C-alpha cells in the first residue's frame, strides 16, 4: 500500500515550517507532521479543505495627502475569491480624510471579512 503525502510551507509566520500531510488510499487525512506550533497544524488542515488568504491592496482617495489608502481584510477569505474581492475593492472611491481602521467595505461579498484602511490619509 502506498503512502500519499502532500508538503506544505506554513505561511502564518516567518518560521515557514515545512509540514507534511499524509493520506490513506481513500484520500483521508491520516497524519500531519513538521509543524512547530498548533497554528501550523490548523493551517494545513485549512489548506487541504478550504485554503484561505488575506489580501492587501489600495483604494482610491480624493482630496487627500495621498492618492491611495492601503487596505487589508480583517480575516482571510477563500483563495478562489481573491480576484472577486479585488473587483469589489476597485469600485470604491473614498473622500479624505480616511483613518486607520476605518471599515471601507463591511462583510465583503458576504464572506465575513471587512475591508479596512491600514493608514491615515488626512485631507489636504
Amino acid at each position, binding site marked *: 500500500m502506498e503512502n500519499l503525502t502532500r508538503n506544505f510551507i506554513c505561511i502564518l509566520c516567518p518560521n515557514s515550517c515545512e509540514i507534511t500531510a499524509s493520506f490513506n488510499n481513500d484520500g483521508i487525512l491520516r497524519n500531519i507532521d513538521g509543524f512547530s506550533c498548533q497554528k501550523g497544524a490548523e493551517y494545513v488542515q485549512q489548506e487541504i479543505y478550504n485554503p484561505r488568504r488575506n489580501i492587501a491592496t*489600495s*483604494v*482610491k482617495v480624493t482630496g487627500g495627502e495621498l*492618492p*491611495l489608502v492601503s487596505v487589508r481584510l480583517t480575516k482571510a477569505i477563500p483563495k478562489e475569491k481573491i480576484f472577486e474581492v479585488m473587483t469589489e475593492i*476597485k469600485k470604491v*472611491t473614498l473622500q479624505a480624510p480616511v483613518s486607520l481602521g476605518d471599515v471601507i467595505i463591511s462583510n465583503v461579498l458576504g464572506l465575513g471579512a471587512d475591508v479596512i484602511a491600514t493608514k491615515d490619509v488626512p485631507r489636504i
Partner: protein
Amino acid sequence: MTRDVRSYDVLIIGAGVVGCAVARELSRYNLKIAVLEKELDVGMETSGRNSGVLHAGFNNKPGTLMAKYCVEGCLEFDQVAKELDIPFKRTGKIVVGFTEDDKKKLYQLKEQGERNGVPGLEIIGREKIKELAPYVDGEFALYSPVTGILNPFIYTIALAENARQNGVDFYFANEVLAICLANQENQPACYQLTTTKATYIGRWLINCAGLNSDKIARMMGIDDYTIYPCRGEYFILDKKAGDYLKIPAYPVPNPKEGGLGIHLTPTIDGNVLIGPSSEYIEERDNYAATQKIMDLLLKDGSRIFPYIRREFFIRNFAGIRPKLVSEEQGGYADFVIEERTETPQAINLIGIESPGLTSALPLARKVVEMVGEKEHLKEKADFNPYRQGILCFREQPLEKKKELIEQDPNYGEIICRCETITKAEILQAIHNPLGVETLVGVKNRTRAMMGRCQGGYCQTRIAELIMQEKGKEPPEVIYARQGGNMFTGRVRD
C-alpha cells in the same frame, strides 16, 4: 492633415554638441535659426556618451583639422566655461606605458603634440606618476598639463541654452525625412525639409547630424559619405573610486584601433569612468552593453588602475563614434566640413568623432566663416555670450546655503539624497529653457538619479514633480526617448 511650415535663414540638423555650438556661434548674427533634432533633448547621442575629456590635441596627425581645432578648442576653454557657466577642470592627463616600445611611442606622441602646438607636454617617470595619480600603474608616462574634464551633457545644454537666449528655436522629436533643394533662377538656393512633425524652409542647411550625417547628405543627393558606427562601452564607478583618481589615465594608444584605448577618467562630478571599448556595429542607435565588452573593460582597466572594485560599479553606458573609416581601414579620418557646389549653402560636417567635443566651437566658427564668405553677416547688437546654469546647492558654502533656503525654501528640500540635489534645482531643470520634459532631461541637468542609488530614493518624486509641473498623466511621462513611456497608467482611475 495640414502641416506647419516654418521659415528660417538657417536650419541646423542635429542638436549634438556641434549643432548646438553652430547654433550658438551663428546666433551672434542677425539670422533666424532653427535646430531640428530627432531626439527629445540635446546631446542624446555621441555628444553625451563619451569620456567628457577636453583633449589637448597630441593624438591627432599634424596638419589635420582634428589637430588644429582640438588644440584651439582646448586652449580657449577657460573663457568658454566662464561664459557658459559650466563646471570644467584642467586636470591634466597621463598616458602611461610599461615597455620600451611604449616609451618610444610616447616620445612620438609628445613630438606630434608639440608639432600641433600643444603646450607643456612632458615625459615623466614613476615618481611623478605616483605624485599625479598615486593608484595608477605605469613605468613612465606622457603628461599633458592642459587636458581637462567637463560634463558633456551640461556643455551641450549650455551651448543650446545660450543659443536659445539669443533667439535660436529648437525643435525636438523632429526627424528629417526628406530634403528638397529649390533652385530657382535669380533666387538664392532654398531648402525644404520634411520632418516627422512639420515642414521647414531655410536658405542655409547645416548638417550636424553626427551618426546620421551621411543619411542627411544622401537626402541632399550627396552619396559618397559613409558613416561607420563604432560603439564604445563604459562603466561608471561610485564617487568613492573618485578618491583614487584625480587625473585621466590612458594607456599608450594603438593607432590601428581608432580609439584611445580603454582608459580611466575622473568625471567633473567626482565619479570615475572606465572605457571605452571600440567595436564596429551595424545599427547606429544600438547602445546596448554586452557581457563580453564589460569583461574586457574590467580586465583592461585593471591593468593601469588596479583599484577597480566590483562594489564601485553604479552604471554602464555606451556611446557610438560616427567614424568615416571602416574597421578594415582602421585609425581616423579627418573631420569633413564642406559645402559642395551641387548643394550650395549646405554645409556638411561629417565624421565628427573624437575630438569633436573639444573641437565643437572651432568647427562652429568655421561654419560661420563659410556662411560669411557667401553673405554679409550682421552682428546682433544684443548678443549675450553669457548663460547661467542651475546653481548647485551642494557646492555652496554653509552661509550661502542658508541664504539660498531663505530666498527659496525649495533649496531646503533635498530630493536626490546621493547627490544632494534640492527641489529648487529639480524645478529649474523641469522648467528648462529648451522645454525638455523627459526624466533623463532632469537627470542630465541636475545629476539627480546619477548617484549610487540610481534614483531609488528620488525617481518617484521627480516623476511626480514632472507630472505636477507639466500637467501630465502617468502615461505621458517619458524616460529618455520617444516611445520610452515610464508608466502604463493609474492603479486606480
